[in-house]
């Protein structure tokens, strides 16, 4: 996730202080990992350097955190471009799981066990997410669903691999 673009987007509704930005970001996006203030500061100075924001005013007091930022025209254009550019789908070609399975096969360990243990772990995570989803609000549900669908995809891969284990063993031990 691009923190810079997210913060820029938050500024579109009006100028904000750095602290204000962190608070809104945490509330809306930072469920798992709240933003460090240092991250906000470094990001904002990079945006300032690129001319995507300007300092709208400085309140009396000490410390740079008192700066109020406003978005520039270039900043709005940049947010627009980010939103309309699709994310690059990431193929996990060299995933750790694949490595583990192949390694198990090469060392004549039980690869099915590797897969099944992983499978059980995946399902355990899915159970926790499902539980959380049931208790949470709509935002929780959507975020959990995203994770659930990803886990489900992994799980499907695990099942498929389990079904093709014999062929895979032939291929890697040849």
């Amino acid at each position, binding site marked *: 996730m691009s923190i810079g673009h997210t913060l820029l987007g938050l500024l579109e509704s009006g100028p904000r202080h750095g602290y204000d930005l962190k608070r809104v970001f945490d509330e809306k996006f930072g469920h798992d990992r709240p933003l460090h203030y240092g991250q906000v500061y470094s990001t904002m100075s990079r945006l300032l350097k690129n001319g995507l924001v300007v300092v709208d005013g400085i309140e009396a007091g000490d410390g740079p955190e008192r700066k109020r930022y406003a978005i520039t025209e270039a900043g709005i254009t940049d947010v627009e471009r980010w939103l309309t550019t699709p994310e690059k789908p990431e193929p996990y070609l060299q995933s750790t799981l694949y490595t583990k399975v192949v390694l198990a096969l090469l060392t004549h360990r039980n690869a099915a066990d590797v897969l099944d243990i992983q499978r*059980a772990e995946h399902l355990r995570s899915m*159970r926790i997410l*499902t539980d959380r989803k049931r208790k949470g609000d709509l935002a929780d549900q959507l975020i959990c669903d995203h994770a659930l669908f990803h886990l489900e995809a992994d799980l499907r891969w695990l099942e498929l691999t*389990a079904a093709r284990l014999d062929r895979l063993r032939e291929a890697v031990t040849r």
Partner: protein
Amino acid sequence: MTAPVPGALLTAENLRKTYGPTVALDGAGLSLHPGEIVAVMGPSGSGKSTLLHCLAGIVTPDSGSITYDGHELTAMSDSRRSALRRSEFGFVFQFGQLVPELTCVENVALPLRLNGTPRKEAERTALAWMERLEVADLRGKRPGEVSGGQGQRVAVARALVTGPRVLFADEPTGALDSLNGERVMELLTEAARSSNAAVVLVTHEARVAAYSDREIVVRDGKSRDMERAV
């Protein structure tokens, strides 16, 4: 394969079942404790539905034992097993289970009526269950007039109306989209937990299985208890 688990409500061991040349079960087993939700997973054709049919006493295995509440299911007569299914078990299938000419409330009341409950009383209880599953407004409609998700909720209400100790669900969301499927699963597990019914949930979808407490995987007619695998 597995020793009988103390405190289990339903235990099956070493089940074997063939349909002609096809081996459906080859030493499968399962144990179910009161009130717990167990998912039976596996690829299609792996024998998970047959396992459910055997556990519920619909199909008699060729060999192996099934103990329900201390009684050997395979030794029971057909009529005793039918009576058991009427009073102790509930069923939800993928589709085609509601009687098309009966109204929804009549469908839900059907198991009670099969047990001899008078019509009025049966339909009153049925309506209470339909309210819990949020389909009370469909009471006068026929199954052909309701959506798939609504129909499955009616089916869940029907499965739970007798207060069964075990609910058998075979791909209950198989014909539904994920939104409707999730709603059905939420209502099903909630209702089952609140009435302390154990659930055997056959599914090939991990997201549906995630509503369970633990899962069993069936492959080539053999079962694997994943909790013990970990």
